[in-house]
C-alpha cells in the first residue's frame, strides 16, 4: 500500500518560531492525524541555581525566567516569601506592585495581538499594534528605568517609589489606551477576515480545559471564571472586586476558540486600565519597604523555617511558586516554579489533531506560549559529541570579540 501520511517536523529551530520548541505532526493531505510536542530546548535549570543562592539573588534570577512578563515570577516569589516570613509589604508598596503588574499585562496582551495578526499573515496590523505598545513600555522605563527586567520588587515591598510626574504620565497613558483599545477592538473583532480565520480554530471546550489543567486567558476563553486576582486576591487586588473576564459575559456564550481568546485579551486590557486608575485614586502614602535593610532581611530569612505558595495572575495565566526556607541558609531550600505555558502547552496536542496544517501557527500562538517560562542543565556539545567546558567556551567568546573589534576598528 502506498504511503498516505507524511511527517512534518516544526522546530526546535524554525523561521516561524520565536522560541525553541518542536512540534512533530503526521499529516494526511492537509489534515493532521498525529501530533507530538517536545519541549525543554530552553531548560536552564533555574530552580537548581536558585537553591544555591540567597533569596534576594533568587528574586532577580526569577525575573529572568521570562523575558516578556518579567514581573510575574518575582511577584509570585515575593508573595510566597512574605507568606513564609509572616511579613506584610507597606500599603503603598502593595499598590505600586499592582500598578506595575497591570502595566505589564497591557504590554503583553498587545504583544500577543500583534503576534496573532502576524501568524495569520496580517503584518500591517502587527506593526500598528506594536507601535501602540511603545507607550506603555515608555512608562515602564520612566518608572523603573528599564523596558524589561524592571528589578522593581523586593521581599516586603518595592525598590522605587512613584513620583508625581509618574502619576501624571500614567493618567495620560490611561486616556491614550482607552482610545487605542477601542480602536483595536474594532479592528480585530469586527473584521470579517480575522473572524473567518479564528472562529472555530483552536476550539477548547470547558470540560477539556478543566481536564487539561489550562490557566489564564486560555481557560477563561473556554468559559471558566478563573483568575488568581479574583480567587485568592493579594495586594491591591484584594481591595477591589476583580472579576474574571469571560466571553459569556460579553457576548452571551463561550466557544473557547482563537476569536474568543482575542476578545478576552482585549477586554482585559480595559480591565487593567480600570485597575491602574483605582490604584492611582487610592494610592496610600507611606514607606515602600517593610525591612529596608537587606542584610537584616537576609538574616531574618536565615532564621525562618517555613514554607508557602505564592500565586500571581500573569498575562498568560497563573504563575505559582512553592518555596521552603529551612532555617539554615538565607535562600530557598526548595523552590518550584510553575509557569502558565507549562500547563497551557497541554492543549496543543488535542487541538492540533484533526486541524489543518495552516492552523498550526494559530493553535501554537493561541495560548501565547512562552518557552523560556516553560523550560527552566546546560550541556553544550560539539559535532563529535564531546562536552565543551566553560573555559573553552569562554576562550572562544573572547577570540570572537577580539576578531570583531579588529574588523570594526574598535579601540580598547
Amino acid at each position, binding site marked *: 500500500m502506498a504511503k498516505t501520511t507524511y511527517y512534518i517536523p516544526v522546530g526546535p529551530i524554525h523561521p516561524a518560531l520565536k522560541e525553541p520548541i518542536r512540534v512533530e505532526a503526521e499529516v494526511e493531505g492537509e489534515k493532521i492525524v498525529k501530533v507530538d510536542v517536545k*519541549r*525543554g530546548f530552553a*531548560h536552564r*535549570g533555574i530552580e*537548581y*541555581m536558585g537553591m*544555591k*543562592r540567597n533569596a534576594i539573588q533568587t528574586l532577580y534570577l526569577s525575573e529572568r525566567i521570562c523575558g516578556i512578563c518579567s514581573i510575574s515570577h518575582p511577584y509570585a516569589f515575593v508573595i510566597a516569601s512574605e*507568606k513564609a516570613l509572616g511579613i*506584610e509589604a507597606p*500599603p503603598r508598596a*502593595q*499598590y505600586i506592585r499592582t500598578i506595575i503588574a497591570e502595566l505589564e499585562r497591557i504590554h503583553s496582551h498587545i504583544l500577543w495581538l500583534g503576534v496573532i495578526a502576524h501568524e495569520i499573515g496580517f503584518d500591517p496590523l502587527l506593526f500598528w499594534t506594536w507601535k501602540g505598545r511603545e507607550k506603555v513600555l515608555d512608562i515602564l522605563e520612566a518608572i523603573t528605568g528599564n523596558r524589561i527586567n524592571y528589578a522593581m520588587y523586593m521581599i516586603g515591598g518595592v525598590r522605587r517609589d512613584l513620583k508625581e510626574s509618574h502619576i501624571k504620565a500614567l493618567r495620560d497613558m490611561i486616556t491614550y489606551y482607552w482610545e487605542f483599545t477601542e480602536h483595536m477592538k474594532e479592528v480585530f473583532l469586527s473584521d470579517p477576515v480575522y473572524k473567518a480565520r479564528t472562529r472555530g480554530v483552536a476550539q477548547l471546550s470547558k470540560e477539556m480545559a*478543566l*481536564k*487539561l*489543567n*489550562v*490557566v489564564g486567558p486560555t481557560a477563561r476563553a473556554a468559559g*471558566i*471564571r*478563573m*483568575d488568581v486576582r*479574583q*480567587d*485568592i*486576591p*493579594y*495586594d*491591591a487586588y*484584594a*481591595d477591589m*472586586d*476583580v*472579576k*474574571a473576564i469571560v466571553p459569556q459575559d460579553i457576548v452571551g456564550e463561550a466557544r473557547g476558540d482563537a476569536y474568543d481568546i482575542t476578545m478576552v485579551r482585549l477586554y482585559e486590557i480595559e480591565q487593567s486600565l480600570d485597575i491602574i486608575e483605582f490604584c492611582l485614586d*487610592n494610592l*496610600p502614602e507611606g514607606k515602600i519597604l517593610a525591612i529596608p535593610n537587606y542584610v537584616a532581611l537576609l538574616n531574618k530569612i536565615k532564621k525562618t523555617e517555613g514554607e508557602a*505558595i505564592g*500565586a500571581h495572575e500573569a498575562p498568560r495565566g*497563573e504563575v*505559582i511558586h*512553592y518555596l*521552603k526556607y529551612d532555617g539554615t541558609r538565607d535562600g530557598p*531550600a*526548595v523552590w*518550584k516554579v*510553575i509557569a502558565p505555558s*507549562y*500547563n497551557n*502547552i*497541554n492543549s496543543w496536542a488535542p487541538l492540533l489533531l484533526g486541524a489543518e496544517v495552516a492552523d498550526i501557527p494559530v493553535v501554537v500562538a493561541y495560548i501565547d506560549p512562552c518557552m523560556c517560562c516553560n*523550560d*527552566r*542543565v*546546560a*550541556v553544550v556539545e560539539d559535532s563529535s559529541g564531546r562536552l565543551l*567546558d*566553560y*573555559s573553552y567556551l569562554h576562550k572562544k567568546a573572547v577570540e570572537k570579540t577580539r576578531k570583531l573589534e579588529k574588523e570594526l576598528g574598535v579601540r580598547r
Partner: protein
Amino acid sequence: MTLKAEEILERLKERLGDAILSYEIKEYKMGVKKPRTYQEIWMEINRDAFRKAVEAIFEIDYPHLHFITGEDVGEALTMIYSFGVFHSHPWGEVSIVMKLSLPKDNPVLPTITDLMIGAETNEREIREMLGVEFEGLKNKRHLFLPDDWSEGKYPWRRDEYGVEDMIKHTHKSVREIRKQRGEQNG
C-alpha cells in the same frame, strides 16, 4: 456552592481517617483598605492513602492542579501535591497542599492522569527530575531533559543519583571560578 476550609477538612477526615498524619489550616490576610482572609489546608498523609485522598478531592470539586513537587530529605523523598478547589469563585479558592513521604527504595506512586490528563506534564517532570515512578503513566518520555540524558541521574536528588558531579559552574560566581583556577582579577 463553595465550602470553607474547615468543611473540606472534615470531609477529607471522614474519607481518610487515620491516614491523615497531621494537618493545619493556614490563614492569610490580604488587602489594605478592607482586609479579608483566605485559607489553605496543609496536611501530611500516609502514602498508601494517596490515591484515595486524590479521589476524595475530586469528589469535593473538580480541582485545578497547582503543582507537584518533591524534596530529597535524605532517607526519603517528600512529595508535595497542591490542588485548588472552588476556583472561579471570588475569595473562594481553597488550596489543599498534601505531603507524603516516599521511601527511596520504592519511589512509586499511582498516576492521577486518568482523572486529569493535564497532570501528565507534571508527572513526567517529577519522574525525570526526582526518579519517582508513576504507575499507569502512559507517556514516559523525557519532558525537559534531552532524550540522551544519562540513566539514573536525577537533577533534584541530593544523593549519589544527583547531578552535582555534572554541574561545574552554574552556582559559582565568576570571582570564585577565577580564584579556584588561580587567575588574577581582570
